[in-house]
């Protein structure tokens, strides 16, 4: 039964249960049973007393308790009258608060789902680019100046390959003479955009070039290369789980909304037509 394991299926099951529960409990608390009666029970009074105690660290006196009960009766009367007058409608505060509460319900459900590793594995494969480690290169470089002649370049290359130290062709520069295994985008931020492209496919261990940077011409000896790879799931489990949850809660919120919206016939102006 594939469907039983689907997170979306779980979600609807839990969601349905919560909505049913709310449907059962809400009429009792929300005095619509008899519109003309306001009943404050013993338990309601006890709750008020408890709230008072939490705030003031003592029991309320009888007079204080009476004042609390009166205040809640007053609130109830005014709320009911306000509803009769329709004052709750069109109030942006009340509306956004209600829709926000619905979102909270969805979010709470979404974060409680525990996916199986194969769901995460599939998510990892679908979004492999996000988790791939960057291409890395380690190299040594010699700067030959802005526009060295071909003869100078050739001479420097021969000398370097023969392991001769020679300062004639080494223009002084603040650029690092070598870089350890470094992500290509970092290399580019030091040497200028595109420099790292020139390093790929160079023979390792050999002085090669010329390579163009933002400053001029370089000879380069690539020392090590670490190609981009996708780490196995166990290494990045928590990261993938976090992203999976984020994606899932967005999917669920959308699905939830669509299900609810399906209960309505929605009439809205066709804005595409209007704009023509």
């Amino acid at each position, binding site marked *: 039964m594939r469907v039983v394991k689907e997170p979306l299926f779980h979600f609807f099951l839990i969601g349905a249960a919560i909505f049913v529960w709310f449907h059962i409990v809400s009429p009792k608390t929300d005095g619509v049973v008899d519109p003309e009666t306001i009943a404050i029970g013993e338990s309601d009074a006890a709750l008020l007393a408890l709230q008072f105690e939490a705030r003031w660290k003592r029991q309320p006196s009888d007079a204080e308790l009476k004042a609390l009960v009166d205040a809640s009766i007053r609130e109830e009367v005014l709320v009911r009258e306000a509803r009769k007058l329709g004052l709750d409608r069109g109030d942006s*505060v009340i509306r956004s608060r209600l829709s926000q509460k619905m979102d909270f319900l969805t979010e709470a459900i979404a974060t409680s789902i525990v996916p199986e590793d194969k769901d995460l594995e599939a998510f990892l494969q679908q979004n492999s680019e996000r988790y791939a480690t960057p291409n890395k290169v380690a190299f040594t470089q010699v700067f030959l100046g802005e526009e060295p002649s071909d003869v100078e370049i050739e001479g420097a290359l021969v000398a370097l390959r023969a392991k001769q130290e020679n300062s004639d062709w080494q223009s*002084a520069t*603040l*650029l690092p*003479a070598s870089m350890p295994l470094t992500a290509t985008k*970092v290399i580019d*931020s030091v040497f*200028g955009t595109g420099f790292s492209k020139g390093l790929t496919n160079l023979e390792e261990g050999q002085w090669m070039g010329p390579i163009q940077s933002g400053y001029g011409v370089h000879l380069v000896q690539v020392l090590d290369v670490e190609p981009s790879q996708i780490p196995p799931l166990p290494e990045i489990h928590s990261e993938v789980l976090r992203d999976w949850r984020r994606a899932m809660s967005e999917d669920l919120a959308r699905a939830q909304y669509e299900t609810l919206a399906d209960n309505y016939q929605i009439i809205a102006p066709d804005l595409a037509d209007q704009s023509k």
Partner: protein
Amino acid sequence: MFRKSVCLISLALSPASVLADAVPSEQAAEGLFSEQPYSPYANRTFPERPLWGDTHLHTGLSLDAGAFGNTLLPDEAWRFAKGEQVISSTGQSVRLARPLDWMVLTDHTDLMGFAPDLQAGKPGVLADPKGLEWYEGYKAGGAEAGKAAFDIITNFSQMTLPETLLDSYSPGADAFSFTWEQIVLAAEQHNDPGSFTAFIGFEWTSVPKGFNLHRNVMLRDGPIRALQMVPPVTQPPYGDTDPKALYAWLEEYQEKTGGRAVAFAHNGNLSNGWMFPTEDTYHGGKVDEEYVAARAKWEPHYEVTQIKGDGEAHPFLSPEDEFADYENWDVGNLDITELKTDDMLAGEYAREALKRGLMLEEKFGVNPYKFGMGGATDSHTSLATAEEDNFFGKSVSVEPSSSRVNHPFIANDLGEIPGDLLVASGYTAVWATENTRTAIFDAFKRRETYATTGPRIGLRFFGGWDFSDSDIETRFLADVGYTKGVPMGSDLRPRKGEGAPKFLIAALRDPVGANLDRVQVVKGWLDSEGALQEKVYDVAWSDDRVADQSGKIPAVGNTVDIDTASWTNTIGTAELVAVWADPDFDPDARAFYYVRAIEIPTPRWVLYDKLRFGADLPEDAVLTHQERAYSSPIWYTPAE
């Protein structure tokens, strides 16, 4: 008796015999320390490249940022700094040209976390009449929202925030703790040692009567230490605007958690003279031994350039310096409730503060203004943008639009700071050996940092006594620099011989940026009369220019094409390297030296607004400027 003496003898002998065992013969030591390794890259312990970052950024968690509609939280701010594309609060796609290496996220601590709850209309906020009023304004959007935001800021600076809200969003309240936790955990989640460092930090927003005394704080530590405390605030009764209260918090933090923290101020230019006092502090204290010791201990860094003005130098204080008049804001204090007068300026600018530090050191033996330099954005958009062609403004209300240049930053009956004066600045470069919290923090402590107004100019600065002209020929400049001298942020080694100090200076232009015009050394000193002096020396420049009669190097020229907002690197040079000796050295005078590297002229951000939106620029808008880098100083102290 016999036994006792044996005992004594053995006691007396034993340390010696242990030592004797540990001293090997000369032959045994052979080969223990190898010769100089063949590889010149082996054993390298100094930093190879500067790490770029922003020390000052706000997200929607900050009261003012959130009230002005910033809906981006720390997660987005971190992802943006790391180079990811995000959607700004105004719905615009934005990305940095190059990712940063590190960042300190510094949300305002006062009413931290209130703004997102206001945006969401949380019941606790709406229960308060003022909260409800602001929420309705925020929801209405447009001018109503702006009015609400302004009302929030006004109530904050006048300390008239509703008590219930203050109670719910100050230290001790759950909402405050949870917001701090959110900040700490977001940093931890994005901290990626070796490739990106996310510092836990905050801004302590002291602004009594509109005088800007803000300090940012960065922690060296992770969540285990950071979560043992909540950050301090300034609103009474929960906090105090006196920096001494912040120092007390820092002391307690280190004591209680075993962690480490530093504080650094910014925008002395909006303090009306109170940032760098020499006699009295704003809070009625004296600049005494206790004050200078605490300030020296906790503030080894200063944020010298940012969106609200560049604070290196001011033409009134440095009339001889033709580059001093750069992006200065000198109208008044932060909310322009008091206008600026010339006598206030000396207490506001970094160069003057460095000079005052020499005087106070002479008096107290401690220099309270011995700071390294840094730049930051202070953006309130969650977007650390300091590039002219990618500038997302100070707050959400001035994210790119055709009219933002015409929105004043502030305007009232006393004065105005027009919108086109916002500065697309800056970043801090750190010479750290690795990209981790510990390595970068430690570099801040030893002041091995420098500021730029945005471009990633490379800058090396070493001071010593025996650099020679041939040192500029070396391919391994840093090798020579660290071996023969000390790096930026340090004290010169004790004087050898009779000569003047020499400095090895090198500047490299941004790999994708504009060429360099010149590098200069700025010297400040305390003369034998006890007066503070300064002088700016050109030490290397491009295009073989020759000094005029007054000794000044003529201007480099300007290649900016106003119609296309472009320039060419046909003037200036990519790299400037020099060894410079102080020609006016007085061995008896305390002094500091720092380097200023200046680019050729490039377009200011307003020109890109004109190009892309057809923005209607004010007639007096500055269209081109020369961006720059400021090194941390090297200090000289005469021998006793």
